[in-house]
């Protein structure tokens, strides 16, 4: 499976951030909580929830699209959830996280789905081509990403405005409370623009080459 170089570099950067946050947390420097919320933080339910999200996304993607779509959606969910958690662990040092962290991390799936699913759908249509000759997979993935950029920008802006409303009306602890929403949005933007279209293209190309 050959993925575009820029996508691979972005993926590597994400993995480095995730590993860095993991190291910070293991040495006791990451994941700082406010108001004693660390006592309520249970990591196993969060791990199970992330695994369930990846599993459900894979099955949903397979039923609705194809194996390439399933892997793409599952990869997007896994990447976004882990990167979001890692960014919370790092940025939370400044603001202090809340006991809502596990739940609001799952809220980030809204951005993942809203940004990834339309791109997969459009890319598939572009490859098929309809009445005209279809595009190559890489071209279709890039074209799909470009077509959906205005929609993603508008939705991301609306999400940022909602977050801004919370932050403007809150104090420092509010920033820590809604931080998972912001990191979830950021992770979804990064993955939908720089990673997942090319995962889909690489997987779909591999499937074509096998045939």
């Amino acid at each position, binding site marked *: 499976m050959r993925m575009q170089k820029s996508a691979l570099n972005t993926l590597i950067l994400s993995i480095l951030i995730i590993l860095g946050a993991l190291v910070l947390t293991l040495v006791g420097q990451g994941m700082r909580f406010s*108001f004693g919320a660390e006592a*309520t933080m249970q990591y196993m*339910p969060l791990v199970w929830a992330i695994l369930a999200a990846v599993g459900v996304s894979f099955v949903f993607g397979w039923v*609705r699209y194809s194996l390439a779509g399933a892997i793409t959606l599952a990869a997007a969910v896994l990447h976004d959830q882990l990167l979001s958690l890692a960014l919370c662990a790092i940025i939370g040092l400044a603001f202090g996280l809340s006991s809502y962290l*596990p739940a609001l991390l799952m809220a980030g799936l809204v951005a993942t789905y809203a940004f990834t699913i339309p791109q997969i759908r459009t890319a598939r249509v572009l490859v098929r081509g309809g009445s005209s000759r279809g595009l190559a997979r890489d071209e279709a993935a890039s074209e799909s990403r470009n077509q959906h950029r205005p929609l993603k920008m508008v939705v991301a802006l609306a999400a940022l405005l909602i977050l*801004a409303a919370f932050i403007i009306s809150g*104090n420092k602890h509010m920033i820590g409370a809604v931080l998972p929403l912001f990191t979830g949005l950021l992770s979804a933007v990064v993955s939908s623009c720089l990673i997942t279209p090319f995962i889909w293209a690489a997987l779909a190309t591999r499937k074509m080459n096998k045939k």
Partner: protein
Amino acid sequence: MTKKPQSKKVTVNRKAIAAVTLVIALALTVVFVTLGVTGRKMDAQGLYNLLPWLPTPGENYNWRQALVPGAGLDEGVLTTLKPVSEEVKEEDLQTAAKVLMKRLSDFGWSDTAVEVKDNQLLITLPKSADVNYLKNILTAKGEFTFTTPEGEVFMTGENVTQAGFGYADQSGTNIALSLMFDGTGKEAFATKSTELSGQSISLRRDGVVITSPSIGEPITQGTVSIPGFTLDAARENAVLLRSGALPFALTQEGESVPTKALLLNDQKDLLIYALAAVLALIAVYLLVRFRLGGLVAVWMLLVQLALSYFFAALIGAGYTVLTLSAIYAALLVSFFAVVNLFIGIRDDARQGRSVRQALKDSYATRGHASLDVYAGLLLLAVVFIMMDQGIIRIFAEVFALGLLLGLIIMHLLLRLLLNETIHLFGGKTGLYAANATQKRED
């Protein structure tokens, strides 16, 4: 010879039907939103009231009775607890803070705070909390011991790995405390229950016997179910066993005092104004980009918001950051669906298609993308509810309701009202998309 009577042709005024449909929908929306803001007395004596459920600024409205605020977004109650013993270590205070936080979380109070300050523990609870009841739970040391009839301790609460409660029989009033032990506890309990078969074992909390069930037969599986509790008592004991014992006993210092919201600035209504301003900005965007179609979309978003708050209040979700996040996350999905749909309509209209046809095609193509997003997220939310992982489940319940409302409103109601709007106002492209080619619909 008789003539065949001529049948009267009834012409349906489509515009009139569209107008009536829109007026009825608008009237229902206005009534619903008004009730959401003001509430209503359902009888003359005031025994039954429909409480308002839409958050509005000011103290004049009773929506806080329907959507009960947590300590994060409204004033709370600050209770100060101090250790009974004079000298305590800092690490013991931190341990005590963690134990108290676990107890509060286990009781369902997620919007609380426990801080260590000046050798004391500051507990912030929501205003709606029964502070006196919770104070008894928080100050209890929670040291459990299992003793023989002679008072000899053979096991402690530290050997209990899981504690729960449930109905002991069909009466509904006899609640059993169910316990699971670790390896050491399983062995100790098996030995003693064999030795004391036909006698009783006492369960003590902080030295006081809370129950002395008789032992019918040896219990060797490592689990035991102790009946004879009330619901409150069983729940209390289960929570205390799960949280663990405090390193020292606590006592309240002074009276509980009001305190400001944990997450907000001094102006607690600012959040309501800020969210209203965001909605206004979203409305302006939709109106400017999609004009009459955007107006209908704004209307539907408002309906979804009002219904989401209604159902959140119905299920007792509370006015917390968690509830608001779930409601606005679902609203964001609907905003995505609306913008996606109208971009499709605009693009088709620019290519010369009629608005009605563009609407139909947009639902058939781009509409399926938003259907997939709704369906996928709804599936995830249902899975999270079934997994029952504490706070994730609480979020997923409100989120699932919002998604379901959004799905029905954006794919059924919006489509219906847009069609009626086209019938009433015509299909001129300029009415539904800015900078689009003008095409009059025949």
